[in-house]
């Protein structure tokens, strides 16, 4: 009887543990946010230093993250939106900022 209870408890705990682990790994926001932020920061720095106001998009080495830069003119300003999408579906980051023309 003791052995049976033990096996059930072990089974339950293992299931919980592995479901939690796979859940965490499958959540793009949890795992990829750091890389997305690095990509976004790099693009912001490039935009500010080179004053490049062309729309652009590119992917990381693993091709799971895609960075989009969209530039809209608004009066005397360029409004720049830098966003990073996971597998072109889930938006992980969206940072808007303005630069004087």
């Amino acid at each position: 009887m003791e052995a049976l209870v033990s096996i059930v408890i072990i089974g339950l705990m293992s299931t919980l543990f592995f479901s939690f682990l796979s859940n965490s790994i499958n959540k793009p926001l949890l795992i990829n946010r750091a890389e997305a932020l690095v990509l976004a920061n790099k693009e912001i720095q490039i935009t500010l230093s080179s004053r490049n106001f062309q729309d652009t998009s590119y992917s990381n080495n693993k091709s799971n993250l895609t960075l989009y830069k969209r530039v809209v003119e608004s009066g005397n300003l360029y409004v720049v939106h830098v966003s990073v999408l996971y597998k072109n579906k889930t938006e992980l980051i969206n940072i808007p900022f303005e630069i004087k023309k």
Partner: protein
Amino acid sequence: MIKQSIILTGNKGYALTFVLFINILIISSVFVLLEVIYFYNLRQIKALKKTRLDMACYSAVQISMADTTYISKQADTLMCDSIKVYVYNRQFGLLREIITSAFNGSDSSSYKCIIGSKLIPPFNNAVTITHPNAQVTIAGATNIIGNMELTSKGITKGNIFGIRNYNGNYIEGNIITDENLQARFFNDSLITSIFNYNNVPGADSLLLSNTIIDNNFISRNLPNQNYVVKGNLILGDSLYSNYLNFINFTVEGKTTFSKSCFTDLNLTIKSDSIIVIGNNCHIENALLISKSGIICDNSSFKNTQLIARDSVIISSSFSGYPSVIVNTVNTSNLKELNSHITLINSIVNGTIIQNNSIVGQVNNKSKITIDKQSKVQGIIYSDNNVELSGKLYGSIYTYNFYYYSQPGEYINWLVDVNINREKLDAWFLLPEGFKSKNNYEIISEKWLY
């Protein structure tokens, strides 16, 4: 396998204890993993929030520069990326300083920058001479790369005894004639307001007698403080700032930066008397105003403005961009008619301005003198005379060129003048005060936190 089976099925009742122990291990490892992921995520969320705050602060500066109505207000708030950004701006001598701050819970960001105005015509010329019907004469090894703008067409070639003859090819650029060139291109109301101070302590200032400022003084006294010094002021030691604080002195007596003094305090000194900057000093982020004169020897400056009524004499020194050196002359005061800015064996990256209350007064001998060993990268502006012997990488806008050779003076003779407009940095920005619409850009920036 046999051993495990014995434990699980043993008669002594170890099986459940063993399973509970395994459970605790699994639960602990789950918690550890959970915490690692939680803190990792928390860090990333904070980093993202910080980036958003930083960009909101940056955007607020850009919005302020794009719409100058914000510049006219000392304090304002702007919404950038749904974040409330506090914008403070102040006139700091002839430069303008903007500080933006944004908060989001425990996260915060603050950004400080100095802004200047993009170069506008006539500073796209190498030389602009505004004296009406100026008869310009070229002599010696004059070499001008860039355009010349004059009020009359006639340029003659001349010889002065002892100066080698004009070599025939003095300009790589066009000569433009405009009879209606403005003699004054600088709005002196800004300068006048800079000198409107008195040494009476107000409610927000502390009174001091003769004072020595050293690190003890800085650590003893509150930051962001105004002081009125009824006596002499001496700055010694190395005075470091955390870039958050400012310290202002209004001084009745003489101000001295003692030998090897280093300061990057956000320092403003308004002195009734002379300011002397001694040997081997390094001064950053300072505004030094004297109703008398400023004398600097063998020192270096960065982002420092020297503004004086009587004279500014700089010898064997280096001024990093953006330096502003100003001499303002009230021509109704006879004493000021010999005011001058003199550069001896020095390098200036910035703007040199001599402003006169009335232009074209014959008895006015005030002038800017750049000696042969000196170099200027930037703009030289004078409402009266400029005696240019050293190299200028930039643009000069003057009422007259001045040259002296025994036995007399030569007005609007360009003798051995060496100006290269093309070598001026494309991102060179002007201080405020010129009669044009300001098109602001950032001169220097600093993230405070």
